[in-house]
């Protein structure tokens, strides 16, 4: 016991930790383990053939491609939005700052139908894009739009606090030594922001890969073209193909765990960077 826990005069450790572990086990760990245990009923070649059919592979390509593109756009514009919110003043800034979190608070189904209505051929935005030959709703481009919406707050909210903490002395020193603003940004500010930016990117990417609600309305959901992996899991479930659905969800779980590990490493890097500077 002594090696497990340091001595403290405060009561309630056993009760609090015991309840935490019990609750986590019942709600999270045992159900999650069900996916792995049920998949173990398949032999390895069976599992492999289920998770590598052409339709499934096409869904991976779409899910990862669209998520990556959306996360890149969010990294660029998220950095810009964070910069503008921290460094500049303009009318309505407080409201804009609060609304950045909208994708966290707005139910995904609402986001999905709103974006679909906007980008459909007769929608506010879609009617201007259609004459240019750009179709967004019911194409992979629509999936990209939905995932960009969903991932928007992550980069802003990870970069913002780091940007607020950058000391103005560093920038003043750079200016004194003859650096122009662009040089100061690329050599001083950007390197300091980089770990947070990567963390935000990874969070947006991880969220996008699992996203379902906002995507299915706008995607069109055509097999091989605009069908994301989470939707394929639902399709298999509706066909009572439990083994197939479970195998696919194990693939997604493993990918999520790897991303979680990467995000934790990035956050550790980010913290260490801010302590050093």
């Amino acid at each position, binding site marked *: 016991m002594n090696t*497990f*826990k*340091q001595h*403290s*005069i*405060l*009561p*309630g*450790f056993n*009760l*609090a*930790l015991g*309840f*935490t572990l019990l609750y*986590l086990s019942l*709600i*999270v760990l045992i*159900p999650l383990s*069900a*996916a792995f245990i049920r998949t173990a009923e398949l032999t390895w070649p069976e599992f492999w053939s289920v998770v590598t059919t052409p339709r499934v592979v096409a869904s991976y390509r779409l899910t990862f491609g669209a998520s990556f593109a959306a996360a890149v756009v969010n990294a660029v514009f998220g950095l*810009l939005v964070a910069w*503008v919110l921290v460094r*500049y*003043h303009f009318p309505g800034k407080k409201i*804009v700052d609060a609304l950045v*979190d*909208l994708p*966290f*608070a*707005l*139910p*995904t*189904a*609402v986001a999905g*139908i709103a974006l679909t*209505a906007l980008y459909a051929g007769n929608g*506010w*935005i879609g009617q201007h894009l259609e004459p240019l030959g750009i179709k967004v709703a019911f194409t992979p481009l629509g999936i990209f739009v939905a995932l960009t919406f969903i991932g928007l707050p992550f980069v802003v909210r990870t970069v913002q606090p780091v940007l607020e903490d950058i000391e*103005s002395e560093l*920038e*003043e020193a750079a*200016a004194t030594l003859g650096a122009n*603003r662009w040089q*100061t940004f690329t050599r001083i500010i950007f390197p300091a922001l980089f770990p947070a930016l990567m963390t935000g990117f990874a969070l947006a990417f991880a969220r996008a*890969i699992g*996203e*379902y*609600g906002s995507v299915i*309305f706008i995607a069109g959901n055509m097999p091989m073209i605009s069908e994301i992996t*989470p*939707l394929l899991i*639902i399709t298999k*479930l509706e066909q009572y193909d*439990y083994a197939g659905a479970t195998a696919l*969800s194990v693939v997604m779980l493993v990918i*999520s*765990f790897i*991303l*979680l590990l990467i*995000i934790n490493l990035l956050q550790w890097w980010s913290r260490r960077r801010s302590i050093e500077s």
Partner: protein
Amino acid sequence: MTTITFPLSPSAQKEHATQEPAWVRWSLIGVALIFLTLFLFIPLISVFYEAFKKGSDVYFAAITDPDAVSAIQLTLTVAAIAVPLNLVFGVAAAWAIAKFEFRGKNLLITLIDLPFSVSPVVSGLIYVLVFGLQGWFGPWLAEHDMKIIFAVPGIVLATVFVTVPFIARELIPLMQAQGTEEEEAAVVLGASGWQTFYKVTLPNIKWGLLYGAILCNARAMGEFGAVSVVSGHIRGSTNTMPLHVEILYNEYNFAAAFAVASLLALLALVTLALKTLIEFRNQQHQQPRGHE
């Protein structure tokens, strides 16, 4: 300091060495606002526009329809169960993690965050694997005439799963920052464990608790993917508000779909307003104490 004040006339302002020229500032602000307008503000406005497009009669008919009312009731019920459960969990987890030093703490924090990184669809599926007819307890539940999947308990469980981290991850850093001195003083002066918690800890964490509960509630009421897998979509019985929106939308009843969606959008706006208010309050209360 990097605060920027606007010049009365451009010539009166000398360019600061650590500040961008005005045209750069305004272009950056412009591009950021255009991006946010396209991706955030227009979608938000369009929800309310579409909801009222066919007039307020259609709107109120849609939200007072019996199926809509039952969906609203179910959503409120689910949140009323899921949020208090995760509140108790969050406090217990934060007490253990923030007030004591023990091995494996970082692993425990990672495990608490786990539901955030699981796809909503997978979150629903795992409960089907445990409680569904093909699942571990399915046959036993069927024998005893109990239903979890395609019934309300399954919806509650899936919602609890996706909202597990919200309150805990708000409280852990807050309670870690507050340290243990105040509680130790209370215990030394003879307070019992519960007295210490109610009189010392709770007043210190009440705003963080509220903050976490608000975010937890928004997600609990709005969850779609996980609930969709376990619900069975029975109208008037196992349909939550987001699922009701989907059904109406797929029936091409767009005005009604957006009417119910507008209630959820309103919930999101209230959530953001309360969140901003609490953040504003916290800033005000921290300033007099100064930075440590």
